[in-house]
Protein backbone atom coordinates (compact mmCIF):
# COMPACT_ATOMS: atom_id res chain seq x y z
CA UNK A 1 0.00 0.00 0.00
CA UNK A 2 1.16 3.49 -0.86
CA UNK A 3 0.50 6.28 1.62
CA UNK A 4 0.90 9.87 0.49
CA UNK A 5 1.16 12.84 2.85
CA UNK A 6 0.94 16.41 1.60
CA UNK A 7 1.03 18.32 4.89
CA UNK A 8 3.87 19.85 6.82
CA UNK A 9 4.31 17.78 9.98
CA UNK A 10 4.86 21.02 11.91
CA UNK A 11 1.42 22.29 10.94
CA UNK A 12 -0.83 19.24 10.76
CA UNK A 13 -0.99 15.77 12.26
CA UNK A 14 -1.28 13.76 9.01
CA UNK A 15 2.17 12.19 9.25
CA UNK A 16 1.54 11.04 12.79
CA UNK A 17 -1.76 9.38 11.92
CA UNK A 18 -0.29 7.76 8.82
CA UNK A 19 2.57 6.29 10.82
CA UNK A 20 0.16 5.02 13.45
CA UNK A 21 -2.06 3.26 10.90
CA UNK A 22 0.31 2.21 8.11
CA UNK A 23 1.15 -1.47 8.10
CA UNK A 24 4.87 -2.20 8.47
CA UNK A 25 6.44 -2.52 5.06
CA UNK A 26 4.27 0.16 3.45
CA UNK A 27 5.56 2.77 1.05
CA UNK A 28 5.19 6.35 2.25
CA UNK A 29 5.55 9.22 -0.20
CA UNK A 30 5.85 12.79 1.04
CA UNK A 31 4.59 15.41 -1.41
CA UNK A 32 3.83 19.15 -1.43
CA UNK A 33 4.38 20.61 2.07
CA UNK A 34 4.80 17.03 3.31
CA UNK A 35 8.42 17.14 2.13
CA UNK A 36 9.29 19.37 5.08
CA UNK A 37 9.22 16.18 7.17
CA UNK A 38 12.56 14.96 5.88
CA UNK A 39 14.96 17.76 6.88
CA UNK A 40 17.86 16.53 8.97
CA UNK A 41 18.15 18.15 12.38
CA UNK A 42 14.47 19.09 12.63
CA UNK A 43 12.19 18.16 15.50
CA UNK A 44 10.74 15.47 13.22
CA UNK A 45 14.03 13.69 12.61
CA UNK A 46 13.72 10.89 15.17
CA UNK A 47 10.13 10.15 14.15
CA UNK A 48 11.01 9.98 10.45
CA UNK A 49 14.20 8.04 11.12
CA UNK A 50 12.13 5.53 13.04
CA UNK A 51 9.66 5.38 10.13
CA UNK A 52 12.43 4.52 7.66
CA UNK A 53 13.08 1.34 9.65
CA UNK A 54 9.53 0.05 9.19
CA UNK A 55 8.63 1.60 5.84
CA UNK A 56 10.22 2.84 2.67
CA UNK A 57 10.00 6.62 2.84
CA UNK A 58 10.11 8.69 -0.35
CA UNK A 59 10.00 12.43 -0.95
CA UNK A 60 8.95 14.09 -4.20
CA UNK A 61 12.00 15.74 -5.78
CA UNK A 62 10.22 18.59 -7.58
CA UNK A 63 8.55 19.60 -4.31
CA UNK A 64 11.85 19.48 -2.42
CA UNK A 65 13.46 21.70 -5.10
CA UNK A 66 10.59 24.19 -5.12
CA UNK A 67 11.12 24.62 -1.38
CA UNK A 68 14.90 24.91 -1.59
CA UNK A 69 15.65 21.69 0.29
CA UNK A 70 18.89 20.28 -1.08
CA UNK A 71 19.32 16.50 -1.09
CA UNK A 72 22.25 16.67 1.33
CA UNK A 73 19.85 18.01 3.96
CA UNK A 74 17.71 14.89 3.90
CA UNK A 75 17.47 12.37 6.70
CA UNK A 76 19.40 9.24 5.73
CA UNK A 77 17.32 6.51 4.20
CA UNK A 78 14.79 8.82 2.57
CA UNK A 79 14.60 8.25 -1.19
CA UNK A 80 13.84 10.96 -3.72
CA UNK A 81 11.56 10.32 -6.70
CA UNK A 82 10.09 12.46 -9.48
CA UNK A 83 6.52 12.46 -10.80
CA UNK A 84 7.32 9.36 -12.86
CA UNK A 85 8.47 7.64 -9.68
CA UNK A 86 5.23 8.75 -8.01
CA UNK A 87 3.30 7.06 -10.82
CA UNK A 88 5.38 3.90 -10.48
CA UNK A 89 4.78 3.74 -6.73
CA UNK A 90 1.04 4.15 -7.28
CA UNK A 91 1.05 1.44 -9.94
CA UNK A 92 3.25 -1.00 -8.03
CA UNK A 93 1.20 -0.84 -4.85
CA UNK A 94 -2.24 -2.45 -4.64
CA UNK A 95 -3.92 0.68 -3.32
CA UNK A 96 -3.24 4.27 -2.40
CA UNK A 97 -4.27 6.24 0.64
CA UNK A 98 -3.93 10.03 0.65
CA UNK A 99 -3.58 11.39 4.17
CA UNK A 100 -4.90 14.88 3.45
Amino acid at each position, binding site marked *: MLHTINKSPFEKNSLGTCLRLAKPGSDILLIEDGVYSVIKGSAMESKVREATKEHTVYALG*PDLKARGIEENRLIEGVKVVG*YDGFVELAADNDRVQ*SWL
Partner: protein
Amino acid sequence: MKFGILVNEGPYQHQAADTALNFTKAALQKGHEIERVFFYHDGVNNGTRLTTPPQDDRNIVKLWGELAKEHDLDLVVCVAAAQRRGIVDQDEAKRHGKNADNIADGFRISGLGQLIEMGIKSDRLMVFGD
Protein backbone atom coordinates in the same frame (compact mmCIF):
# COMPACT_ATOMS: atom_id res chain seq x y z
CA MET B 1 -3.01 0.51 -15.95
CA LYS B 2 -6.03 2.77 -15.45
CA PHE B 3 -5.87 5.69 -13.04
CA GLY B 4 -8.81 7.64 -11.71
CA ILE B 5 -7.94 11.16 -10.55
CA LEU B 6 -9.95 13.04 -7.92
CA VAL B 7 -9.23 16.76 -7.44
CA ASN B 8 -10.73 18.33 -4.32
CA GLU B 9 -9.37 21.87 -4.24
CA GLY B 10 -9.55 24.83 -6.58
CA PRO B 11 -6.56 26.04 -8.58
CA TYR B 12 -3.90 28.25 -6.93
CA GLN B 13 -5.15 28.33 -3.31
CA HIS B 14 -3.74 24.83 -2.75
CA GLN B 15 -1.13 22.87 -4.68
CA ALA B 16 -3.53 19.93 -5.15
CA ALA B 17 -4.50 20.86 -8.72
CA ASP B 18 -0.85 21.29 -9.73
CA THR B 19 0.11 17.93 -8.26
CA ALA B 20 -2.85 16.25 -9.95
CA LEU B 21 -1.87 17.79 -13.30
CA ASN B 22 1.76 16.74 -12.96
CA PHE B 23 0.79 13.23 -11.88
CA THR B 24 -1.68 12.86 -14.74
CA LYS B 25 0.89 14.01 -17.29
CA ALA B 26 3.52 11.63 -15.93
CA ALA B 27 1.06 8.72 -15.96
CA LEU B 28 0.13 9.40 -19.58
CA GLN B 29 3.79 9.69 -20.53
CA LYS B 30 4.44 6.28 -19.04
CA GLY B 31 1.66 4.83 -21.18
CA HIS B 32 -1.01 4.51 -18.52
CA GLU B 33 -4.65 5.35 -19.13
CA ILE B 34 -6.65 7.99 -17.28
CA GLU B 35 -10.15 6.70 -16.72
CA ARG B 36 -11.43 10.12 -15.74
CA VAL B 37 -10.52 13.26 -13.81
CA PHE B 38 -13.27 14.11 -11.34
CA PHE B 39 -13.49 17.53 -9.70
CA TYR B 40 -15.20 17.66 -6.32
CA HIS B 41 -15.52 20.13 -3.42
CA ASP B 42 -13.76 23.39 -4.40
CA GLY B 43 -12.07 21.33 -7.11
CA VAL B 44 -14.96 22.33 -9.36
CA ASN B 45 -13.30 25.75 -9.62
CA ASN B 46 -10.70 24.18 -11.91
CA GLY B 47 -13.43 24.25 -14.54
CA THR B 48 -14.17 27.96 -14.98
CA ARG B 49 -13.12 29.66 -18.20
CA LEU B 50 -13.29 33.12 -16.60
CA THR B 51 -9.81 33.02 -15.00
CA THR B 52 -6.98 35.29 -16.13
CA PRO B 53 -3.92 34.38 -14.07
CA PRO B 54 -0.86 36.67 -14.23
CA GLN B 55 1.04 36.20 -17.49
CA ASP B 56 4.17 34.93 -15.73
CA ASP B 57 2.21 32.20 -13.91
CA ARG B 58 0.73 28.91 -15.08
CA ASN B 59 -2.86 28.87 -16.32
CA ILE B 60 -4.21 25.78 -14.59
CA VAL B 61 -7.65 25.77 -16.25
CA LYS B 62 -6.02 26.01 -19.68
CA LEU B 63 -3.49 23.29 -18.83
CA TRP B 64 -6.32 20.88 -17.97
CA GLY B 65 -8.13 21.76 -21.19
CA GLU B 66 -5.04 21.25 -23.34
CA LEU B 67 -4.18 17.96 -21.68
CA ALA B 68 -7.74 16.77 -22.14
CA LYS B 69 -7.70 17.67 -25.82
CA GLU B 70 -4.37 16.02 -26.48
CA HIS B 71 -5.24 12.78 -24.67
CA ASP B 72 -9.02 12.75 -24.98
CA LEU B 73 -9.46 12.95 -21.20
CA ASP B 74 -12.85 12.98 -19.51
CA LEU B 75 -12.89 16.00 -17.17
CA VAL B 76 -15.99 15.84 -15.01
CA VAL B 77 -17.16 18.56 -12.64
CA CYS B 78 -19.55 17.36 -9.91
CA VAL B 79 -22.92 19.02 -10.41
CA ALA B 80 -23.88 19.27 -6.73
CA ALA B 81 -20.53 20.76 -5.71
CA ALA B 82 -20.66 23.06 -8.76
CA GLN B 83 -24.10 24.39 -7.86
CA ARG B 84 -22.89 25.38 -4.40
CA ARG B 85 -19.91 27.19 -5.90
CA GLY B 86 -21.27 28.77 -9.06
CA ILE B 87 -19.79 26.66 -11.85
CA VAL B 88 -22.44 26.24 -14.57
CA ASP B 89 -22.74 25.19 -18.19
CA GLN B 90 -25.50 26.32 -20.54
CA ASP B 91 -27.96 23.66 -19.39
CA GLU B 92 -27.37 24.35 -15.71
CA ALA B 93 -27.67 28.09 -16.31
CA LYS B 94 -31.02 27.61 -18.00
CA ARG B 95 -32.22 25.20 -15.33
CA HIS B 96 -31.46 27.61 -12.49
CA GLY B 97 -32.41 30.85 -14.23
CA LYS B 98 -28.85 32.18 -14.51
CA ASN B 99 -28.03 34.60 -17.31
CA ALA B 100 -24.47 33.42 -17.82
CA ASP B 101 -22.35 30.28 -17.74
CA ASN B 102 -18.67 29.86 -17.00
CA ILE B 103 -17.64 26.28 -17.73
CA ALA B 104 -14.32 25.96 -19.52
CA ASP B 105 -13.65 24.08 -22.75
CA GLY B 106 -13.00 20.41 -22.22
CA PHE B 107 -14.98 20.10 -18.96
CA ARG B 108 -18.45 18.64 -18.51
CA ILE B 109 -20.82 18.73 -15.56
CA SER B 110 -22.24 15.46 -14.27
CA GLY B 111 -23.31 13.61 -11.14
CA LEU B 112 -21.43 12.05 -8.24
CA GLY B 113 -22.15 8.64 -9.72
CA GLN B 114 -19.32 9.36 -12.14
CA LEU B 115 -16.92 9.43 -9.19
CA ILE B 116 -18.07 6.04 -7.94
CA GLU B 117 -17.97 4.63 -11.45
CA MET B 118 -14.43 5.96 -11.79
CA GLY B 119 -13.52 4.17 -8.56
CA ILE B 120 -14.98 0.92 -9.91
CA LYS B 121 -13.41 1.12 -13.35
CA SER B 122 -9.96 2.38 -12.34
CA ASP B 123 -7.14 0.17 -11.13
CA ARG B 124 -6.01 2.95 -8.80
CA LEU B 125 -7.85 5.98 -7.49
CA MET B 126 -5.68 8.97 -6.62
CA VAL B 127 -7.02 11.69 -4.31
CA PHE B 128 -5.51 15.18 -4.50
CA GLY B 129 -6.75 17.67 -1.95
CA ASP B 130 -6.04 19.74 1.12
